[in-house]
């Protein structure tokens, strides 16, 4: 009987707990063979339990007629209640399943929720309870009755029975449950005072299952009457009693935590809450849970400062608590909400250092593997995000301290979570941070490590290339270029060759290796590196690169050889140009070293390599100037001809020709004139062309090459807007050369054009023109002989002489000093001629010897004054020269005439020869060897 009662009590308690819980909706099972089997099993169980229910009903049906045993009633009622419960559960399961089907649209009608029906029990037990009040088991029957009424919804009636039971049966085994039930009733009906009283009775039974529940309810009563401290205290008492050491808390405990938090949240401030909790003892195991939830609650209420205090106190009390990473995360988020970004970052920073797998904290807590998956996820995420933040800031703000933190953060991640999928990316970021921080050696190593974590392919190639770039930086930062750096760089490229080929950076990598070797002057190694390019590049291009290295090495000979071979294989403008340029450089070297012949050969080779090119043009120019330097004018002219043929539009021959002309003008004026003449045809600039033509003409004229001078003077005169004096001068010269070449008519025309400018141009020019024109008269005069009849011809010649002398006097009046010796000479010549003509004149016929002698004597006497005048004229010519410091041919001629006519006075011969060239004497030799 006692066993039965206890069992019934146990069942009742279970059922009451069930009543406090909300019904849980179970998940719907799948419709398959397994669920069919389950269905069948359920059906079997149901039928079995329904049988028990029917059995009880049948037995209790007998109550009307028989006096039934109370033990049997209680025993059967136990089974009945059990069966009712099971069937109810099955009904609830079915209900849930059908509801799910309805929600899917597979059922038309919403199923009805099953209701536990105790009406039969109530109807059977009520009379029993009424009549059986004092016997054994009477309190059980009364309790069951009240329980059934309560569950059936007749709570008032049930409450009355419960109250009665407390009074009637104060020592009943049901006292605790009844007190609790009453407490529940009062609580639900808002009768807090009564509820409190009832619950307090329940808490006298510390060992009871309902003890904590009662405390919990008391906590809520205090909460509802705003006595939050007592409320918190009650809840905390529940925790003190029920808190499980293994960390697995039941529902009530969990709710007690929540409730404690709710109560504490109503304290004035977090400090008060902390003080309260402190008073409970800071080593209580539930405190972390409470404080975490309290923090969350305060956060919801935006009481951030309070939250921070709670979290920090939590850490202070429980430095080893496994929730701390989450707490730190929450703190960091709080700081973010408070716009305290730096504090947030600092918090995360602390978190990753305090709680990472390397820490004692982690080692202590890691056994909580499921939870720690979340912690690892959280920490790893933090490590990544915080490190990246520092990395970005460090780069952006150029602050090394941030970069150091980023590096540290990446290290922490890698040492903590080397197996995580993010590890390879973080390794790469670490390498980049090291690079950004200028720690290149470490960066290179990390790039390599990172590369090893990636599968073969372009991405790995990119990382390998970054490593190479790092080596490159190290190399160029070292003072003289460190050969030791190149080796690992080379190995790197070799090791990741296929990856670098895939990402298209192989060529660049090889070039960098080659450049480094070039930098330290190891061209052989540089060339060896370049050879590897054949794997990705056309061998021709590789040869080109090799040739470029020879150039850098200043090994022009080798570069030339290579380019020549390349050119032979595949002659393109580019190869020709390169080869020509190398040859040009070699030629310049020869020039520098004064190897003239070699330089000439090479410059010629440059031109023949790429005729028509700019470098070919430059080579010809150089050749021209080389020859000019050596005064090999013939060769200069040859070059000019070649130049004009190859580069008809180029104006570069012109200065060459002009300079060549200037260089030889003194010793070879006619040849210089030829060069100027040629140069004048090489330019389209009319002004320059005519200038050169004039320069040539002047030289031709000075050297009596009048035929060549004439057309050039004419060319000059074709120019537009010539200054008047220049025009007159050139026309005078044109007239002169025309006279000298026998073109008298044209000459006179030219000279008349000059005379037409009298008064507008220099008198010298006019004077010269007049003098020149007088040559015609002079010629006529000189040609006039004195024949019979003497008087007639004499008069004619006299008239011509007078006219000529008058004209010469006119010229003298121009006061052109340089003309005076010539004019006086001509005057003297005319006078001398008159004298000679007289003496040589035809003698009249029929004269005797004596008469002829007499005639001749008289002629001489008459002629002598003319000689005297001619001498005076010559003397004037000589004097004019001396006075005006002119010693031209005319002065010389005057002198020679005077020496001839008046030898005693003027013939002065020193007997000395003029300047003569010297020859070098050859010298004797010594014996080459002994006799």
């Amino acid at each position, binding site marked *: 009987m006692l066993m039965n009662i206890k069992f019934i009590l146990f069942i009742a308690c279970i059922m009451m707990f069930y009543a406090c819980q909300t019904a849980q909706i179970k998940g719907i099972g799948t419709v398959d063979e397994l669920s069919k089997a389950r269905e069948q099993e359920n059906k079997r169980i149901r039928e079995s339990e329904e049988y028990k229910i029917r059995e009880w009903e049948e037995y209790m049906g007998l109550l009307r007629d028989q006096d039934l045993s109370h033990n049997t009633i209680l025993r059967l009622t136990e089974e009945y209640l059990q069966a009712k419960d099971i069937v109810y559960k099955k009904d609830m399961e079915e209900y849930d399943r059908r509801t799910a089907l309805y929600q899917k649209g597979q059922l038309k009608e919403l199923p009805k929720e099953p209701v536990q029906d105790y009406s039969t029990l109530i109807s059977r037990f009520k009379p029993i309870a009424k009549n059986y009040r004092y016997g054994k088991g009477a309190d059980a029957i009364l309790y069951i009755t009240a329980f059934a009424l309560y569950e059936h919804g007749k709570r008032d009636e049930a409450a009355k029975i419960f109250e009665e039971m407390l009074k009637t049966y104060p020592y009943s085994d049901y006292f605790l449950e009844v007190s609790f039930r009453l407490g529940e009733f009062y609580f639900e009906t808002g009768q807090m005072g009564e509820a409190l009283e009832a619950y307090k009775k329940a808490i006298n039974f510390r060992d009871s299952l309902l003890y904590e529940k009662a405390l919990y309810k008391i906590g809520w009563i205090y909460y509802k009457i705003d006595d939050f401290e007592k409320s918190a205290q009650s809840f905390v008492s529940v925790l003190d009693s029920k808190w499980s050491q293994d960390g697995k808390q039941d529902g009530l405990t969990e709710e007690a935590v929540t409730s404690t938090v709710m109560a504490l949240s109503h304290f004035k401030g977090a400090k008060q809450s902390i003080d309260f909790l402190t008073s409970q003892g800071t080593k209580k195991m539930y405190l972390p849970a409470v404080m975490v939830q309290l923090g969350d609650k305060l956060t919801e209420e935006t009481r951030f400062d309070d939250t921070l205090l709670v979290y920090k106190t939590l850490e202070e009390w429980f430095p080893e608590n496994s929730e701390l990473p989450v707490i730190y995360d929450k703190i960091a988020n709080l700081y973010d909400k408070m716009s305290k970004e730096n504090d947030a970052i600092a918090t995360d920073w602390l978190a990753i250092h305090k709680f990472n797998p390397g820490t004692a904290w982690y080692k202590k807590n890691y056994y909580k593997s499921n939870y720690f998956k979340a912690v690892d996820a959280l920490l790893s995420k933090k490590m990544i995000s915080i490190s990246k933040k520092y990395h970005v800031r460090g780069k952006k703000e150029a602050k090394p301290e941030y970069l150091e933190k980023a590096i540290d953060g990446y290290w922490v991640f890698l040492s903590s979570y080397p197996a995580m999928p993010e590890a390879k990316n973080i390794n790469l970021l670490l390498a980049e941070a090291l690079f950004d921080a200028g720690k290149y050696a470490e960066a290179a190593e990390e790039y390599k490590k990172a590369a090893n974590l990636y599968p073969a392919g372009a991405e790995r190639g990119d990382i390998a290339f970054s490593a190479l770039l790092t080596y490159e930086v190290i190399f160029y930062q070292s003072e003289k270029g460190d050969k030791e750096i190149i080796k690992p760089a080379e190995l790197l490229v070799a090791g990741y060759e296929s990856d670098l080929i895939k990402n298209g950076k192989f060529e660049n990598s090889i070039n960098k290796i080659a450049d480094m070797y070039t930098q330290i002057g190891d061209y052989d190694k540089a060339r060896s590196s370049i050879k590897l390019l054949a794997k990705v590049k056309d061998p021709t291009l590789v040869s080109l690169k090799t040739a470029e290295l020879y150039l850098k090495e200043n090994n022009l000979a080798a570069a030339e050889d290579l380019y020549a071979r390349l050119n032979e294989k595949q002659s393109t403008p580019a190869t020709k140009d390169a080869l020509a340029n190398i040859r040009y450089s070699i030629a310049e070297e020869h020039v520098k070293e004064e190897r003239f012949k070699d330089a000439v050969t090479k410059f010629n080779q440059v031109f023949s390599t790429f005729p028509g090119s700019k470098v070919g043009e430059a080579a010809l120019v150089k050749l021209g100037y080389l020859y000019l330097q*050596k*005064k*090999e004018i013939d060769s200069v002219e040859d070059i000019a001809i070649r130049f004009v043929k190859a580069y008809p539009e180029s104006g570069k021959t012109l200065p060459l020709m002009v300079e060549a002309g200037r260089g*030889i003008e*003194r*010793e*070879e*004026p006619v*040849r210089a004139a030829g060069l100027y003449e040629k140069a004048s045809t090489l330019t389209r600039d009319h002004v320059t062309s005519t200038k050169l033509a004039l320069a040539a003409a002047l030289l031709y004229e000075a050297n009596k090459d009048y035929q060549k001078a004439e057309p050039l003077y004419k060319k000059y005169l074709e120019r537009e807007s010539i200054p008047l004096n220049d025009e007159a001068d050139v026309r005078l010269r044109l007239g002169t050369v025309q006279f000298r070449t026998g073109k008298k008519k044209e000459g006179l025309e030219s000279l008349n054009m000059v005379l037409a400018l009298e008064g507008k141009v220099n008198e010298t020019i006019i004077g010269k023109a007049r003098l020149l024109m007088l040559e015609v008269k002079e010629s006529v005069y000189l040609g006039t002989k004195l024949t019979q009849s003497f008087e007639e011809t004499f008069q004619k010649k006299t008239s011509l002489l007078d006219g000529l002398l008058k004209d010469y006097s006119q010229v003298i009046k121009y006061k052109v000093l340089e003309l005076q010796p010539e004019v006086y000479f001509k005057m003297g010549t005319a006078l001398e001629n008159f004298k000679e003509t007289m003496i040589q004149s035809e003698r009249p016929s029929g004269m005797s010897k004596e008469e002829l002698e007499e005639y001749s004597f008289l002629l001489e006497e008459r002629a002598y004054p003319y000689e005297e005048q001619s001498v005076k004229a010559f003397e004037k010519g*000589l004097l004019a*020269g*001396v006075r*005006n*410091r*002119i*010693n*031209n041919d005319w*002065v010389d001629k005057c*002198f020679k005439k005077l020496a001839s006519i008046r030898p*005693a*006075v*003027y013939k*002065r011969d*020193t*007997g*000395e020869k*003029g*300047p*003569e*060239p*010297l*020859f*070098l*004497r*050859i*010298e*004797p*030799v*010594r*014996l*080459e*060897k*002994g*006799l």
Partner: protein
Amino acid sequence: MKVRVKAYIILILCAGCAGPEVKPSIEGTSSQEKVGISDAATKERMTKLFDEGLRIMDDNPKGALALFNEILMVVPDRWEIYYNSGLSYLRLNEYEKAEERFKKALKNNAPPVKAYNAIGSVYLASGNMIKAVETIKKSLDIEESQTAMINIAGAYQALGQNDMAVKYYRKAGLADPSNRVIHNNLGVLLYNMGNYKGALEEFNKALDKKGDDDARLLMYEAQSVLKTGDYEGAVNTFKRMLAVVPDNPSPFLNMGIIYEIYLMDMEKAVENFEAYIKKGGPKAKEVEAWLEIARNKGKSKEGG
């Protein structure tokens, strides 16, 4: 000893002008067997004769020739002896013999450059410029020595082929820009072309380097200055010439003429003619007549 050393030094210096030496042929060795200089005494004597010939050559080419001929009696196949004896004939103006000896030297393995230069010199001295050019060209084909280039230029100049002369003077000038002879000869070339200013430039360049023939160069310079109409300048140049060769009467003669004819300063003309006569100039008799005329001119000038 000192004299001999000096001679050696001069010879060494001259050897540089003579061009590169050719190594002696093997035949030289066998010649000893042929001629029979077996004894050291004869060897020594011949060598001494040779050295003596070198020493006296400049002042006594005849004596030197005799010595070389003597050596040739004993040693008939050494080119050096033929060469030096040819040189002696040349200094004695015996051109045919000189040519013959130089040709023998060539046959006896004289360096062709030297031999051709020497033969060329014979033609130069004898005035056969065309042959001189032909021969010196052969030397130049082997080696472009300074001597050969200057001599062939001079030959061309004498032939009136100024362009060829200039070409070789330029080439020679490139190797030795301050060479006196080149400047002298270019000056002469320009003088003959009527480019007296250019001639002056060259004579001045030659004079920049002091030498034994400064007086000659000053004469040329003075002549060039005169041609430009700078009579006072010409007088000053003759005075500079006097400073170099104070006993030379020629400057006085030239100054006298300039004063008399051009500057019409009879007093100075008389002074210089007198100085010339005093110095014993070769035309003293003729100058005496000029002196008289100058005095008369001076008197008539004074008289108005």
